[in-house]
């Protein structure tokens, strides 16, 4: 009979834990969420021997069991909860050879939980180059564990590691540090109050004050003469514990590890000199950003065109093969364009995640954080806010989650609040189609394309608004907070291709699946609302239009178009649209754009899809949306609907309005209250309305 054991991978950030996970599981992995919270849960399975399988869980990276973020909290939650279905039979602590001392802190903490623990030392291939020698056997004895020297980059040492996992039952569970050593008096009293509990676990329960809303641990009650200590005293004890642990580690390593310090530096110093230089540092950062955006648009254009055409062909194919009827129309006019509207983003999102993960893997991102901290603090944020702001150009949802690394609550909140101003990829199709309609495709000084310049200005506008509103928010918000900023500056490394491929694939997939379902559902609903009407006017549209005298001299084709637009006007969506028309007319829009804007509140990218649906309902020929939009006339002013004034007004509206329910939902989860997402919704959208109104009235 085959048996399955649970293995948990734990380790500091920047130790290559995820590459170790990738090496162990290969493609046998999936990424999900921990129940109720949005922390990535990576798990996979491997076969250790003929009748032993292992379920491997890659826990979030952490420096210690004292959690300071939601992600880190997952680690301690799991390791303390024997009832969890993922509770590990064996823990593998991944560390890297160059930072062994620091990595061992976490190791000793986990060992003290009484779990069978293996120490996997990664980047062992760099030992010689860095002049490091390690007495593995001696270290195993002192730590009461088994050690594997591995290299995720070279793929070596994994057979040994698997062997050790398979023999997990032989591992010693002796702790490294007796909790009572930290403070005899306090822990003695604790022991008396809870004679049957593990002291170290009790201690962890007492000290975990996680500021993230979801899990507040109950204070241990005064019981049997045990008086709880003040927060300040507890902090002292935690400091004492850390010092004790390091004493143990230092003694252990003194006997087993030797380092040739002359070899340890080198590349770091050279690269740092340039990359965080007071001038070149910024020049390089801006150049890298520019390069990223440039390549994203250059490279994505081809696959995007291809995707666009393929979906058009697919629609035609469906119309010509399936039996005619309402459901066929729903597929070809609602569902297929709906899916197409999502898939078209895949190239850009994938490229953006590709660049971001390269910047993170190489260690460059920490330098950016270092360079930008002072500047970002002027705007109420932290150097760490740069990562969310860059990610925000792909999608605000992962960006809001990326703000978790920011330790001080005020800086984190400000970052979350302003991130939706950055130009996310969902705004892009809206921008592209409107720019194509109202900005001339000509060159300024024969060099720069006006359309390109407009797009770049919109991006800059997004960043500028985010940063300025950050400044405003930090002035308005009265939150007392302790500045708290500790960033590891990891070694520079060549990125591992496999890791990057996995990251890009996972992030893109979760965007397509997550946002995709919503967009699809909305396009179905819109199509139905545009294809049915409440009154006889809708059902008898054909007769009404044909009997109209005006249509006498028209061709059949022109009459069909008239019927279609009459139907649309009298459909459910038409009624709703005309009801809100007075609100959008001052901005220079008609009711169709109004509908598109309203449906955009579910997700911005729905805009183009909505117009596509509204304009294509009932029409026979396959015209591009752009041509249809260009042919629209303004119901109030006459003349073309999309003019320079109304176009700019629309661009500004989309730049500022908070139109993404998924972002609002994630902000609610991350901040724990509806207050902040509601402030975003009304604040941003109100501002957008005013700006769009002014723009149209001034320019028209």
């Amino acid at each position, binding site marked *: 009979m085959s048996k399955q054991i649970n293995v948990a991978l734990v380790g500091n950030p920047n130790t290559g834990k995820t590459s170790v996970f990738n090496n162990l599981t290969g493609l046998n992995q999936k990424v999900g969420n921990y129940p*109720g*919270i949005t922390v990535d849960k990576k798990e996979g399975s491997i076969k250790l021997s003929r009748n032993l399988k292992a379920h491997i869980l890659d826990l979030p990276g952490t420096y210690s069991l004292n959690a300071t973020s939601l992600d880190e909290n997952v680690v301690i939650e799991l390791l303390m909860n024997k009832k969890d279905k993922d509770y590990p039979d064996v823990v593998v602590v991944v560390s890297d050879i160059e930072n062994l001392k620091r990595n061992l802190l976490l190791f000793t903490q986990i060992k003290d939980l009484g779990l069978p623990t293996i120490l996997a030392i990664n980047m062992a291939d760099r030992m010689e180059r860095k002049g490091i020698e390690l007495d593995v056997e001696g270290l195993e004895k002192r730590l009461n564990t088994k050690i594997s020297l591995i290299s995720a980059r070279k793929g070596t040492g994994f057979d040994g590691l698997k062997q050790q996992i398979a023999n997990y039952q032989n591992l010693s569970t002796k702790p490294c540090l007796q909790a009572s050593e930290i403070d005899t008096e306090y822990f003695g009293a604790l022991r008396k109050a809870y004679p049957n509990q593990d002291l170290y676990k009790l201690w962890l329960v007492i000290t975990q004050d996680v500021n993230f809303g979801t899990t507040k641990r*109950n204070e241990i009650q005064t019981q049997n003469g045990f008086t709880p200590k003040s927060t300040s005293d507890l902090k002292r004890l935690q400091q004492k514990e850390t010092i004790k642990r390091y004493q143990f580690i230092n003694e252990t390593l003194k006997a087993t590890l030797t380092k040739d310090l002359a070899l340890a530096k080198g590349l770091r110093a050279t690269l740092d000199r340039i990359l965080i230089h007071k001038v070149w540092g910024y020049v390089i950062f801006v150049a890298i950003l520019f390069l990223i955006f440039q390549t994203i648009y250059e490279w994505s254009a081809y696959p995007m065109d291809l995707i666009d055409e393929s979906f058009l062909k697919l629609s035609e194919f469906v119309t010509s093969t399936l039996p005619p009827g309402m459901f066929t129309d729903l597929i070809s006019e609602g569902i297929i364009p709906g899916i197409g509207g999502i898939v078209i983003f895949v190239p850009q999102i994938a490229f953006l995640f590709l660049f971001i993960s390269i910047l993170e893997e190489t260690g460059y991102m920490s330098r950016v954080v270092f360079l930008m901290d002072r500047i970002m603090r002027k705007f109420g944020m932290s150097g760490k806010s740069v990562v969310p702001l860059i990610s925000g150009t792909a999608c605000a949802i992962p960006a809001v989650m990326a703000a978790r690394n920011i330790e001080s609550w005020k800086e984190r909140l400000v970052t979350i609040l302003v991130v939706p101003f950055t130009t996310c990829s969902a705004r892009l199709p809206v921008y592209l189609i409107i720019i194509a309609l109202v900005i001339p495709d000509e060159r300024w000084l024969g060099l720069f394309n006006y359309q390109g310049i407009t797009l770049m200005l919109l991006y800059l506008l997004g960043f500028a608004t985010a940063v300025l509103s950050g400044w405003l928010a930090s002035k308005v918000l009265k939150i007392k907070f302790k500045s708290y900023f500790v960033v590891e500056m990891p070694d520079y490394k060549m990125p591992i291709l496999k890791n990057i491929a996995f990251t890009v694939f996972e992030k893109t997939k979760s965007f397509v699946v997550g946002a995709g379902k919503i967009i699809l*559902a*909305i396009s179905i609903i819109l199509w139905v609302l545009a294809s049915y009407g409440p009154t006889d006017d809708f059902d008898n549209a054909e007769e009404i239009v044909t009997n109209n005298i005006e249509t006498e001299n028209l061709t059949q084709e022109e009459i069909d178009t008239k019927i279609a637009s009459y139907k649309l006007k009298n459909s459910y969506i038409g009624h709703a649209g005309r009801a809100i028309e007075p609100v959008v007319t001052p901005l220079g829009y008609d009711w169709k754009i109004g509908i598109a804007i309203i449906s955009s509140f579910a997700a911005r990218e729905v805009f183009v899809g909505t117009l596509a649906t509204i304009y294509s309902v009932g029409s026979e020929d396959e015209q591009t949306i752009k041509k249809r939009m260009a042919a629209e006339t303004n119901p109030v002013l006459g003349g073309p609907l999309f003019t320079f004034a109304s176009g700019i007004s629309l661009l500004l509206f989309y730049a500022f309005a908070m139109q993404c329910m998924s972002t609002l939902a994630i902000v609610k989860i991350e901040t724990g209250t509806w207050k902040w997402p509601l402030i975003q919704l009304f604040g941003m959208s109100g501002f957008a309305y005013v700006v769009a109104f002014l723009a149209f009235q001034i320019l028209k």
Partner: protein
Amino acid sequence: MIQEILVLLTFILALTFLVKKYFWPQKKSKSACGISDCGCTK
């Protein structure tokens, strides 16, 4: 006729998905009580 029914079904499916996604109370995670029973008032 069959086509109309299919449209209705798809429509209902899409609507329930959206309602569930945005207007249904989110399932709360059961707060783990750490060690088996200590410090946890259920």
